[in-house]
């Protein structure tokens, strides 16, 4: 059953990722991107990481992709068609490098022997609870630094937008 689910999810995720790149209308790109994110969330559920799956759905498929859609619709980007790129020497060089990197990653992945790790699933404790415990004890400091990072990002956005007016 799990193996079957894995293959179904793989086809959906990889297939929609390919469509994200191939289709020329931005709205379709974003919709397929959402489908990719949902597929990834499915993988996380198969791995029994339901917290990450929920974050994937709420943050990526929900918030970020909807923002993408808003921007596309507000700016009417859909009307603008990107020019078809000529296949010059740079195009072929880029394709070659991309395939070389793909081959390299393939070789690395084929050679992977994952070490046995202690299972993250503890009876009677939800995944969310464990993540929260770690986040607020062991990883307290990076969690707090992230707040400085977000504040810097907010201030930066306000500064960059305000100066236009």
């Amino acid at each position, binding site marked *: 059953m799990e193996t079957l689910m894995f293959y179904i999810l793989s086809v959906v995720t990889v297939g929609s990722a390919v469509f994200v790149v191939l289709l020329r209308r931005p709205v379709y790109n974003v919709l397929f991107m959402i489908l990719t994110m949902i597929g990834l969330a499915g993988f996380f559920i198969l791995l029994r990481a339901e917290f990450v799956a929920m974050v994937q759905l709420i943050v990526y498929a929900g918030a970020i992709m909807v923002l993408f859609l808003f921007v596309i619709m507000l700016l009417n980007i859909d009307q603008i068609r990107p020019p078809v790129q000529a296949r010059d020497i740079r195009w072929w060089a880029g394709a070659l490098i991309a395939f070389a990197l793909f081959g390299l*990653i393939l070789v*690395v992945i084929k050679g*992977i022997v994952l070490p046995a790790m202690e299972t993250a699933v503890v009876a009677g404790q939800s995944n969310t609870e464990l993540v929260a415990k770690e986040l607020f004890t062991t990883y*307290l*400091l*990076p969690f707090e630094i*992230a707040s*400085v990072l977000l504040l810097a990002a907010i201030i930066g956005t306000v*500064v960059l937008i305000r100066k236009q007016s």
Partner: protein
Amino acid sequence: MIPIPAINLGSILPALILCAAGLVVLAVGLFVRRGAVTVAALISLVGIVLAFMTNSPLRALNAEAFSGLVAADSFCWFLNILILIAVGLTVLISAKYLADEGMALPEYFVLLLFCAAGMMFMVSGNHILVIFIGLETLSISVYVLAGIHPAIPRSQESALKYLLLGAFSSGLFLYGAALLYGSAGSLALPALAKYFQAGSTSLMAKAGMGLLLIGFGFKVAAVPFHMWTPDVYEGAPTPITAFMSVGVKAAAFAAFVRVFFDSLAALQVNWSQILWVLALVTMILGNLAALVQDNIKRMLAYSSIAHAGYILVGMVAGHTEGTSALLYYLLAYTFTNMGAFGVVALVGRKGEANNMIDDYRGLAKLHPLLAVTMAIFLFSLAGVPPTAGFVGKFTIFSAAVKEGYVGLVIVGVLTSAISVYYYFRVVMKMYMEAPATEPQALHFGPAVVVGLLIAAVGVLYIGIFPITYLDLAAKSVMPLF
């Protein structure tokens, strides 16, 4: 009950003070209308001095804190000093620049302080997660600062370019971290070191190491990951360019050294070969490209790429000698490059004008003291005694020769000789040529004069009395070995 691990705020106090100073500037900026920039600069300076004072206990502390995520040791103590010098001089240079360009933005200083705090977390990180979050904090602040100039499209273009390529390199860095986590089961530097010392070297771990190397290579602007540097350095506001070329580079090199010498030491045979090649091409390409530049910011951008090459030679040499030479070089480079960019900011005019090398014609006749200061910085960049730049290059090259990297040192010396040409071209313009027909008066603010004075005295002092500082650098790298 959940047991809460010990929280030792003292180990990150300098960074905390910088964050707090940033928040104070942010709050004060809401209420002060006139002279907001001056007030913001003064508060920032107070924060930097306080951070400087609270930094000194870290040297003797030598402890891990926050469940081993942070290492408060002499290495981070030394780098914190470098970062504070860089951000302090940037604040001093900025006041005049912001006034000239009519940018009444207190947020400029907030982002600067947050950026410095991110750097401090990065250099004290004992876990790749902390290093990454520190890296992102500094990167996001710098992306915005590069594009903060409201009137110059080139500034925004540089910010966008930096953001896109920076996000890409962060992605590669994270991919590398994920592969390392997959092989070792942890991202804590001591755990990684233990894993690799046990002799387990999978292809996946090596690929992870390579991707981390690319991520760091991008931040230190090593060839072939340098493509963004000239455009971003030229387009960003001059004080920010100074800060990027010194602070970001120092923090990135520090994390680079800590990760590679502390946790990937067992793979040194592999990565030092890669770094050897990177150092070679970085020195050659940086110096050759700097020869043909007409814009002084672009010329200094290529020169900073070339200096990244010399610093990489220190990493290739390795051991206590190579890394302590690297730290001394970073210190010398901090004073020198901040000073050189400070002069560029002083000579520059509204709208980033007056930044061509030809604009320095006859500067010695108009402003003899300013010309002497600029000459000191350029001599130090070229590596002429008795400046700090000379001692830095000498110690790095002698450490490399001791380890048997004679070929690399020969290339280093030859490219340094090439670099003398483009540095001295500016000196020649200042001293040998007549000034432009209608020289406009320069506007000397008190802050920028103090900043240049500190930088010039620093370059000469640590160049003439290098022993104390070489010794400090050697003691500071002890926790890594």
